């Protein structure tokens, strides 16, 4: 090949591969959602996924939000002092946590904790022929494994985001009142008065989108895993990277949409 054209060919190949991957994920997502309208359903698997994704993620979500809210209060106070705007700490912490940091941090934590475990579990099932066994036992793997996890992610991650938002604001409140000398009642009043319903709605909507992406990517890469331990490792790594990138991209798109 002409050496001048080689870089262009490489870009073309990468672009085609990226488009093929996007198409493949889109088809997988559509196939998953199509099972919503076609029984049988597996409520027990759904409830287990709700617990695993939701309840057991609470500690990591809470700690992440608490420390981030506290650090945010310190940063805004110190940055605001440059133009005598220290008083806006409650409002900026609230808007920062609810609109951006709450959903994004929870989404990334879910990608780290849930996407990886879902991908590893399903990939291991694939390499040990458990997926084939499901089929021979007249059970559709997408109905039994993918749909319950994706629906649980879609429904429970907004709840986690809501919890993360509240804990993040509380982190800012604690630092604001205990360290920066804000009046407790004023801090809370400023926070509540400043937030709009649209801020909360965008936060929860982002949570739903990120939950869907995180669980879908885990299932998608798990199901496509190659044989062997290396295949399981590669599926796990790819799922987390893809979920994190897609969450950040979706965050930008949803922010454009809401604001």
């Amino acid at each position, binding site marked *: 090949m002409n050496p001048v054209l080689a870089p262009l060919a490489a870009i073309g190949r990468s672009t085609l591969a990226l488009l093929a991957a996007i198409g493949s994920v889109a088809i997988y997502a559509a196939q998953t959602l199509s099972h919503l309208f076609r029984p049988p359903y597996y409520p027990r698997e759904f409830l287990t996924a709700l617990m695993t994704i939701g309840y057991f993620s609470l500690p990591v979500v809470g700690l992440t939000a608490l420390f981030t809210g506290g650090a945010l209060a310190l940063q805004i106070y110190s940055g605001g002092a440059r133009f005598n705007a220290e008083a806006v700490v409650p409002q900026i912490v609230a808007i920062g946590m609810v609109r951006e940091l709450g959903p994004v941090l929870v989404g990334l934590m879910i990608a780290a904790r849930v996407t990886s475990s879902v991908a590893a579990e399903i990939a291991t099932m694939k390499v040990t022929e458990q997926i*084939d*066994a499901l089929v021979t*036992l*007249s059970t559709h793997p997408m109905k039994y494994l993918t749909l319950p996890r994706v629906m649980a992610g879609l429904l429970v991650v907004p709840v986690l985001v809501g919890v993360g938002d509240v804990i993040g604001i509380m982190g800012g409140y604690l630092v604001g009142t205990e360290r920066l000398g804000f009046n407790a009642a004023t801090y809370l009043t400023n926070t509540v008065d400043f937030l709009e319903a649209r801020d909360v709605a965008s936060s929860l909507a982002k949570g739903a989108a990120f939950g869907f992406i995180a669980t879908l990517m885990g299932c998608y890469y798990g199901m496509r895993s190659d044989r062997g331990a290396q295949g399981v490792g590669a599926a796990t790594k790819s799922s987390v990277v893809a979920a994190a990138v897609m969450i950040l991209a979706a965050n930008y798109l949803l922010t454009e949409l809401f604001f």
Partner: protein
Amino acid sequence: MIRLEGVHKAFGSNRVLRGVDLEIAKGTSMVIIGGSGTGKSVLLKSVLGLVRHDSGTITLDGQDVTTAERDAFLARFGMLFQGGALFDSLPVWQNVAFRLLRGSLKRPKAEAREIAIEKLRRVGLKPDVADLYPAELSGGMQKRVGLARAIAAEPEIIFFDEPTTGLDPIMSGVINALIREIVTEMGATAMTITHDMTSVRAIADNVAMLHGGVIQWAGPVAQMDASGDPHLDQFIHGRAEGPIEAVR
């Protein structure tokens, strides 16, 4: 009857099956033998639809397996996987009763558990194994649980993929005897893949050797030793010299 005609399957440039023709009569036990990587598992999975063959036809009682209604078709089968393929997240009894706890064969939980314990007993496992998880079992016990799961819904056709691989000779003998007994007792059609010639003699009514992507030899197990086929002779006697290359 299961009939395969001109079945081809390739993975990229690797042509695994190159025109397989085979018939398995109802109620008989067919054992497929052949070297590693000759496509025995692919053949078995093609019948079940786990792998889609590229060309040729596979029929079950005259109906093409690719057009059959999946649930009804699969309900006729039971399968023992090479590694057991037990579900790690479920206790043993729920693995065995998997089919009886969901779908068209669903039974009340207590009844399903009772059947599972009965099937475990059938394969020589005590009831207290029922509440253990697969990771707590030895390889031989996992295989027996897999066997119990394969027969739990009393299927008409049972597939066994390397049922004795990785087991000691005594446990292999136990599994072989169980398979023979279950197949005879249930009147099921069986298709087994194995390298183990002791298993072949214990389980088979008929034997087929897969080599080079085609059925090299097929016939009753009693005629296997006098087949006169050099490939089959080399394989059953485990000789390094012969028409089958040792390095493949």
